[in-house]
């Protein structure tokens, strides 16, 4: 019970994010006590998110994710036909996923033939990175950080929390193949449409992106990778921003790069021995040989 309350409060604080920082923690708590306050209503919404996410079993979460993955492949491109490369990205991804907040579900990673700087995760643990974004990366620690950012979204169930009003999530959020043909199936399809709009066009809430950035630092560090990899990738993207495709990219679906870099640099003080950790540039160079990606 205490855990549930703590989780609710944590979720609420994520929702309130920036306002909590400016108005002060105690003020927020006072507002929370007032049943008519905006904050209390937000908390009530957050509790509903939590209960629908909690009610959802893993196979349903995974079915949502795999359906979205099918849509993602059609939109961004098929996986790159290079088995050794796909294996390598899976090894790096699984190394950081084992040290994430949700290490016990199966994760899968794939590099897509896409000329957009992008990476995205679908519920349940399937994660894609575009060839174009991989082309910006110079070592294993940087790749680990980008993948750990996406694992962070899966671990905190950000995508599903973003569409809490979806009809499918009212009541018990589970699905079977037989139900797919009926009303529940229609609701499921409509929800996949909403999720595509969030993940591929509008982007997740800013606070979720910052949370995934923090998770990337933490998982990278705990795995033994230099957590500064996340910052160096973002700095390289910053240089490329003016000349890159924006639609459906990390530029359009994520908060401003300067804002992300600034927050990450402030958090680096928690990892004083960061510079002594692994970056593994040689293995990365040996295993990642891309054809046709702009660098």
């Amino acid at each position, binding site marked *: 019970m205490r855990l549930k309350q703590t989780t609710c409060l944590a979720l609420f604080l994520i929702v309130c994010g920036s306002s909590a920082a400016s108005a002060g923690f105690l003020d927020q708590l006072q507002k929370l006590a007032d049943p008519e306050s905006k904050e209390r209503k937000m908390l009530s919404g957050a509790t509903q998110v939590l209960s629908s996410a909690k009610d959802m079993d893993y196979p349903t979460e995974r*079915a949502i994710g795999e359906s979205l993955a099918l849509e993602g492949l059609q939109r961004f491109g098929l996986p790159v036909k290079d088995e050794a490369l796909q294996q390598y990205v899976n090894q790096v991804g699984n190394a950081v996923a084992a040290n994430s907040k949700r290490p016990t579900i199966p994760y899968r990673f794939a590099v897509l033939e896409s000329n957009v700087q992008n990476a995205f995760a679908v519920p349940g643990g*399937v994660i894609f990175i575009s060839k174009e974004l991989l082309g910006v990366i110079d070592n294993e620690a940087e790749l680990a950080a980008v993948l750990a950012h996406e694992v962070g979204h899966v671990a905190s169930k950000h995508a599903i929390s973003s569409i809490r009003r979806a009809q499918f999530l009212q009541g018990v959020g589970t699905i079977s193949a037989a139900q797919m043909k009926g009303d529940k199936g229609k609701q499921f*399809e409509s929800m996949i449409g909403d999720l595509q709009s969030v993940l591929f066009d509008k982007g997740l809430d800013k606070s979720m992106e910052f949370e995934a950035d923090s998770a990337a630092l933490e998982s990278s560090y705990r795995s033994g990778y230099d957590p500064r990899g996340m910052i160096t990738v973002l700095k390289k993207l910053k240089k490329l921003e003016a000349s890159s495709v924006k639609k459906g990219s990390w530029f359009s679906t994520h908060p401003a790069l300067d804002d992300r870099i600034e927050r990450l640099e402030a958090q680096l003080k928690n990892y004083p021995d960061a510079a002594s950790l692994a970056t593994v540039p040689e293995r990365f160079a040996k295993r990642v040989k891309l054809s046709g990606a702009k660098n």
Partner: protein
Amino acid sequence: MRKRTLATLVLLLALAGTALAQEKRWVSSDGTTLKKEASISSEDLAQLPVGSELTVLEAGGRWVKVQAADGRQGWVYAGRISDAAPAAEVAGGEGGVLGGTLQESQIATAKADSARSIRGLSPEVAQYAKQRGTPEVYKKELDKVLARKVSAKELKTFLREGKIGEYAP
């Protein structure tokens, strides 16, 4: 008066000492091993499931000396433990590690995972693809993505070769 202050101070220090001695950590990473010595090359004593509660005996470096719930003492890599218990869902629900729920949930997930490469997309997703008229090539390619599994052994070799984390010199 001075005597009383001193006594209070001694008491506080003693309490702080007890608190330190009782410091708890939880296994938060998959594939955590309790080692005999503070080195990856030392003998394996036990595999510790996510959510296992540990008592810290000696900390400070990259390896932490701990005592497991069954009384066994050994060393774990600092990156694999955290100072807060993992979410109930991750650690196997209300029962936690002791309730056996963890094993059940992990076994269920592992079963679903190993069956994946044989049976392809789940029936729900296959039905979704049928309703949406998804071209066959996307289903086949997603299937390949899902079948690409990294085993625990492969991951250990990968980390060792890269000298990452507990394998760092």
